């Protein structure tokens, strides 16, 4: 276990050093993030014109969802995208061989190798919005609600990671999966809005098939103190299943891996 923490520390300190070279990128990411947030809040505000609500959510509580989305988007930009979009290159160039030979779990190695620090402001800002909007909507935090929030956020992240990893791992067979991640990104954008605002069919799909609801709506309900316990329980089981499946799928994919260059 200690070895894994040590590896992460080494990976991320090298990543930090190498990214200092591209400071302009950091600035661009920051501007793009602020612009995206501003635009999303503006679009969201259109749903509330004339004093209406969005699927029983008030303006402030809907902002909590935007915060959770921003937080997860930051994690995606910092961790998931830089690492998981690389897998296809390892497969294409045959360098996956070297990863598999290392005395460390290959899924772990591939998932944490890089860390893009440009995603960090988004992560922090996302959390800030969550707490700011939750206070605005008159929530008082308790130890219990904060723990439920952290658990449900972890559930969301594990599901998000597993789905990303599943698509990335399929690059063992199909070399071009870049477009599949674009489809995923487009569908996940549905998580900017509360799940109850969608038609029934989509609600079903976004809860059980592609569990967008567990990514943003349920963590937001958790911090607002409205999350039902059985949903939390179900989320723990569902995210575990997703994670176990991603590991199983990776093992299965590796059986089909025929190195490219050797």
């Amino acid at each position: 276990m200690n070895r894994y923490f040590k590896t992460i520390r080494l990976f991320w300190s090298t990543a930090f050093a190498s990214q200092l070279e591209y400071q302009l990128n950091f600035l661009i990411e920051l501007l793009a993030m602020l612009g995206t947030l501003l635009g999303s809040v503006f679009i969201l505000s259109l749903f509330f014109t004339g004093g209406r609500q969005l699927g029983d959510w008030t303006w402030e509580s809907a902002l909590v969802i935007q915060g959770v989305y921003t937080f997860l988007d930051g994690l995606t930009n910092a961790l998931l995208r830089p690492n998981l979009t690389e897998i296809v290159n390892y497969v294409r160039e045959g360098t996956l061989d070297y990863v598999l030979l290392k005395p460390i779990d290959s899924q772990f190695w591939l998932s944490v190798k890089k860390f893009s620090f440009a995603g960090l402001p988004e992560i922090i800002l996302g959390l800030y919005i969550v707490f700011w909007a939750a206070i605005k909507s008159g929530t008082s935090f308790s130890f219990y609600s904060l723990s439920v929030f952290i658990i449900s956020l972890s559930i969301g992240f594990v599901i998000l990671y597993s789905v990303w990893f599943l698509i990335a791992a399929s690059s063992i067979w199909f070399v071009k999966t870049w477009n599949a991640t674009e489809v995923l990104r487009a569908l996940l954008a549905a998580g900017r809005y509360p799940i109850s605002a969608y038609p029934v069919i989509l609600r079903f799909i976004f809860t059980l098939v592609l569990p967008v609801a567990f990514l943003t709506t349920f963590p937001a309900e958790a911090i607002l103190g409205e999350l039902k316990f059985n949903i939390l329980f179900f989320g723990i089981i569902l995210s575990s299943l997703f994670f176990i499946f991603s590991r199983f799928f990776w093992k299965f994919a590796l059986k089909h891996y025929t190195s490219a260059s050797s």
Partner: protein
Amino acid sequence: MKIFGLSFKVIKTLLTTQYAYMLEYRIEIALWALSGVLPFIMFSLWSENDVGNTFGLNDIGLARYFLSAFLVRQFSVVWVVFSFEEDSLSGRLSPYLLQPLHPLLRYVAAHLAEQATRLPFALAIAITFFFLNPSSFWLPSLPQLFLAYLSTHLAFSIAFLLQSLVAALCFWTEKSSALERLIFVPYLFLSGLLVPLSAFPSNVLKIAMLTPFPYLINFPAKILSGMPVDIFNGFLAQVLWILILGPSVNILWKLGVKRYTAMGA
């Protein structure tokens, strides 16, 4: 007769080779077509929450608008900056620059060929949409279709020139695709991909109309869906933006080529 200094034979060869090339990537292109579902997600929110009424838009009109926005986006997607960056960094640009064909025209041909490959997938998605929302079915009249076709092409031209402007910055910086993100953000929110622009508050709308973005989705989509729209001024603005962006790209490109150091060669 020549177009951009190219004979018909050259144009035909360019387009057919690029089309053959694109046909190899059918699955990728189908997935890419599918990744444009955002207008449909927005439509489901609008109709479920009955938001349209606030802005004087009924459900059928909205369904048509969002489907049109989807279709216009399908045929005005531009990715030139990514191709160009890759070619520039890998040194593939050097032989392109030596040929008596402007490299940007090669990318134009690639985009047009990709649009042709995309057509059946986009239509399949549109038909699925009609199955799910049968009441929204409509066939635009021929003049409507023609004007929508024309304005979508102009929208594509604006988007292409805008991104070429960023791509030309590749001559100065290694990572100009990062700059593309800065164009994509206002594009996403001001183009009308997420909401018809008529729902914007008037002061935001005024600012948006000063940018090229509303003419990329909102204007063609309104023509196609049959919403009331100022056709004359819309086309005028589209042409104006092309007249502004075209020469700018040309100048920046010429300046850039002088600096070109042939990386990787």
